[in-house]
């Protein structure tokens, strides 16, 4: 007897939607409207007069803005189509975006942040009328302080790199306050720390010294000590590093930095495997950051807004970005009178919807739940690593044979030598199976890299599905390399012309820039 529904093949058959959808500006029809704005009522005109006429001429446009003119339903269809031509955390087994911690963002939190009580808040309204949301900020700060062991937390920044920037800005202010700024001109980082650490330090005016791994693949403590001196302002390190390797001598690193009067800053973008297990303060760090959009489940929002948190010990408290939320009995208020503060690092008080989501996520899990998150994330990662390393040509360089924390930066170097297929080509072909990965931050220290981070959100079955698809693509690389090289075949677009992105004369990130650069329009 045959089954009424044919069984599914072992590997998912996938094809991406392809709508051949024009750019929204090309869909514009003059005069078409999504909303007809009502006439101003007579009473209002009487009360306020001619509003437009009262604007100074210098502020008034001479011609209307070149915006698309479209009916509502067409707008809806346009964006729904675009959204289908996409892979995202809600669609695919999104373990390929290692270092990004693509975990499940619970949908119930979306309901909460759309509550008008929150959505209708205005950042300039009297804090006395917004005590509820301030209580959430206050509680979230306290919980992150507890998680990191730190003294105080600022939730102002809108992303991880912004938080790292705030951290180095506080470190600089600390040394200035101590009269040592002229002497302390160097920041030490490691090659497998997130490059934002080096970038933020450089942007803050420091010379940057990079430490390469030791012979076993761990951050090289002796090299770090050789780099330290009275000129050192801080060490800025990620731990676990982007390889998924936890620095076993992290306390020694911090102590060595303190011994020469430098501060220690901890990049905790990779905190998902250490929640409830290790704490920045217990390793002696002076300052650390979190990405709420990684570890604490808030959406990444495709480049923004994320949300960062900077956590500091007593030394750096006076320098926290301002204003700082304070409590006076039952009343919460903002203290702006803080002469040593590094000042504003973002508009108002942070990305409130993300703070609410993170608060909700932490409260739903509780302390034990957070620890369970870390344990499952580590378990998932080491299970996936075992599956990946069974694929011919895959390796996990550095500290080989050891377990990793929450992610692994793998290498396809052996497969590349055998097939000439690059890691990037493997990743692109994988998208034909409805999955993807990215390779690595630059520079490519690990040759032919790919970075996987399964988080706690995926089941063993899903991790198996991902590993099976990857194994299939590698089989194709050996048996039919052209199939891989000419991929994607089942995607919305075929190859992109990436050369355009290298040439300022050709890149166009807006419609107007496109018209100007390609059609010579001057308007």
């Amino acid at each position, binding site marked *: 007897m045959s089954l009424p529904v044919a069984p599914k093949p072992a590997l998912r058959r996938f094809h991406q939607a392809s709508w051949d959808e024009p750019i929204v500006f090309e869909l514009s029809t003059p005069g078409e409207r999504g909303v007809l704005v009502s006439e101003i009522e007579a009473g209002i005109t009487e009360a306020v007069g001619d509003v437009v006429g009262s604007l100074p001429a210098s502020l008034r446009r001479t011609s209307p803005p070149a915006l698309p003119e479209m009916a509502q339903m067409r707008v809806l269809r346009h964006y729904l189509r675009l959204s289908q031509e996409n892979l995202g955390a809600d669609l695919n087994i999104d373990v390929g975006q290692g270092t990004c911690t693509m975990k499940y963002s619970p949908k119930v939190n979306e309901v909460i942040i759309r509550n008008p009580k929150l959505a209708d808040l205005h950042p300039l309204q009297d804090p006395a009328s917004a005590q509820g949301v301030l209580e959430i900020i206050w509680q979230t700060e306290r919980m992150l302080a507890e998680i990191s062991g730190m003294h105080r937390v600022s939730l102002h920044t809108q992303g991880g790199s912004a938080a790292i920037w705030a951290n180095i800005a506080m470190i600089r202010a600390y040394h200035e306050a101590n009269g040592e700024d002229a002497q302390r001109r160097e920041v030490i980082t490691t090659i497998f720390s997130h490059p934002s650490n080096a970038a933020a330090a450089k942007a803050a005016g420091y010379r940057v010294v990079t430490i390469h*791994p030791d012979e076993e693949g761990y951050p090289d403590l002796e090299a770090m000590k050789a780099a330290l001196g009275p000129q050192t302002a801080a060490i800025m390190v990620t731990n676990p590093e982007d390889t998924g390797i936890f620095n076993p001598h992290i306390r020694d690193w911090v102590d060595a930095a303190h011994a020469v009067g430098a501060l220690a800053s901890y990049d905790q973008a990779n905190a998902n495997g250490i929640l409830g297990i290790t704490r920045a303060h217990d390793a002696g760090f002076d300052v650390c950051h979190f990405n709420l959009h990684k570890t604490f489940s808030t959406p990444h929002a495709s480049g923004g807004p994320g949300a960062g948190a900077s956590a500091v010990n007593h030394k750096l408290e006076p320098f926290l970005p301002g204003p700082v939320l304070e409590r006076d009995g039952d009343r919460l208020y903002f203290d702006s009178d803080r002469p040593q503060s590094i000042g504003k690092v973002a508009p108002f008080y942070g990305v409130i919807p993300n703070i609410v989501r993170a608060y909700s996520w932490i409260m739903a899990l509780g302390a034990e739940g957070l620890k369970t998150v870390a344990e499952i994330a580590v378990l998932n990662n080491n299970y996936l690593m075992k599956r990946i390393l069974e694929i011919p040509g895959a390796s996990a360089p550095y500290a080989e044979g050891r377990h990793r924390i929450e992610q692994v930066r793998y290498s396809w170097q052996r497969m590349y030598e055998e097939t000439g297929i690059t890691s990037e080509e493997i990743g692109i072909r994988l998208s034909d199976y409805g999955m993807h990965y990215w390779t690595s931050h630059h520079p490519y220290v690990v040759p032919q890299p790919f970075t996987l981070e399964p988080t706690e959100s995926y089941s063993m079955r899903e991790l198996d599905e991902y590993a099976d698809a990857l194994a299939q693509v590698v089989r194709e690389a050996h048996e039919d390399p052209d199939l891989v090289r000419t991929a994607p075949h089942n995607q919305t677009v075929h190859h992109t012309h990436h050369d355009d992105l290298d040439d300022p004369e050709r890149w166009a990130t807006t419609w107007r820039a496109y018209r100007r650069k390609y059609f010579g329009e001057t308007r």
Partner: protein
Amino acid sequence: MIGLIVNPVAGIGGPAGLKGSDGEDVQAEARGRGSVPRATERAELALLEFARGNPGARVLTASGNMGQDAVVTAGLEPEVVYRPSGEHTTSADTIAAAAALAAAGASMVLFVGGDGTARDVSAAIPPGTPCLGIPAGVKMYSGCFAVSPVAGGAIAAQSVSGRLPLQRREILDVAEDEVRAGRVDPTLFGYLDVPYVQGRTQARKASSTGSESDAVRDAANGAVRQFRPGVAYLLGPGSTMAAVAAVLCVEKTSLGVDVVLDGRLILADATEQQLLQLVAHRPARAVVTVIGGQGFLLGRGNQQISAAVIRALGEDPLLVVATNDKLIALGGRPLLVDTADASVDESLAGYIRVVTGTDTSSLYRVAAADAAIEATNTSTRENNSWVDSTTK
């Protein structure tokens, strides 16, 4: 149209334990020990890969086992531009074939061999022409080889379908009889421009330096910022040093050690004796970079900066300049110094600051000569799967 040169005897000395394949007597000895040349096989692997995207393509090459045979086997169409006169080809044939390829307008040159072949190719191919080595030699100190024949074929295919950016790489070669006598003393013979594959759109999640030449210029800027008035700087050879000279606006000899003081060139192509005289009466530092693919700072191509010179330079003799990519390409192996004086090598061992850009540096391990020979042998094996697989 791509050009192909196969050195048919490349690598023949390796399996026979002869440390190289230069010269007819060594090749005869290797054949006598039962070695079979594999260079043509290696060429075919690369060409088969190239042929996938370029079926039936015409390939400029030399006759017989200098390229034509491999081209035919790979199903491509040979256009012979050079014919060796004798049965056993020599270094002169490689040079003449390379010159013929250049004259015929080859848009890219693939050569199959080792350091000796690379040296001959670099003697005849003008700068700006993409060249890529398919590893088949015994010695591979030069930084111009693909990691494998298949990977080399893939890069060649990409290079002809859309121009790939080029990196200028040093060509080093050793006198093989010295290696057999236990010495490794390669000389810098010139440069080749090697195409490399950049990451594509996905990689732009993190901004990278626009190109390797930008990175080299940035490293050179970083080094020049550390120059102090009244101090003489001994600029070693290497493409990074050429960039340092360019920042200083001085003419630099491409293979020699030149000395600058307060922004002016005071000595070109200096000998060891001249350097010793110079540093005896004024403060000076040697500015060196990583030469070739094996990570040597001293003792490869810059032997003028000798142990005696290093000693005379005092406590902080070296200003090391290299891009991060060059350090990364070492795959964790230490930088090496080989001044032929164990105590000087030992004094340089440990950690050294490498200037990688404007206000950026890396702390990197340096190992001494004894370790150097051993590490070189190991890394040659790592970098060359063919040597590995045939010696097993």
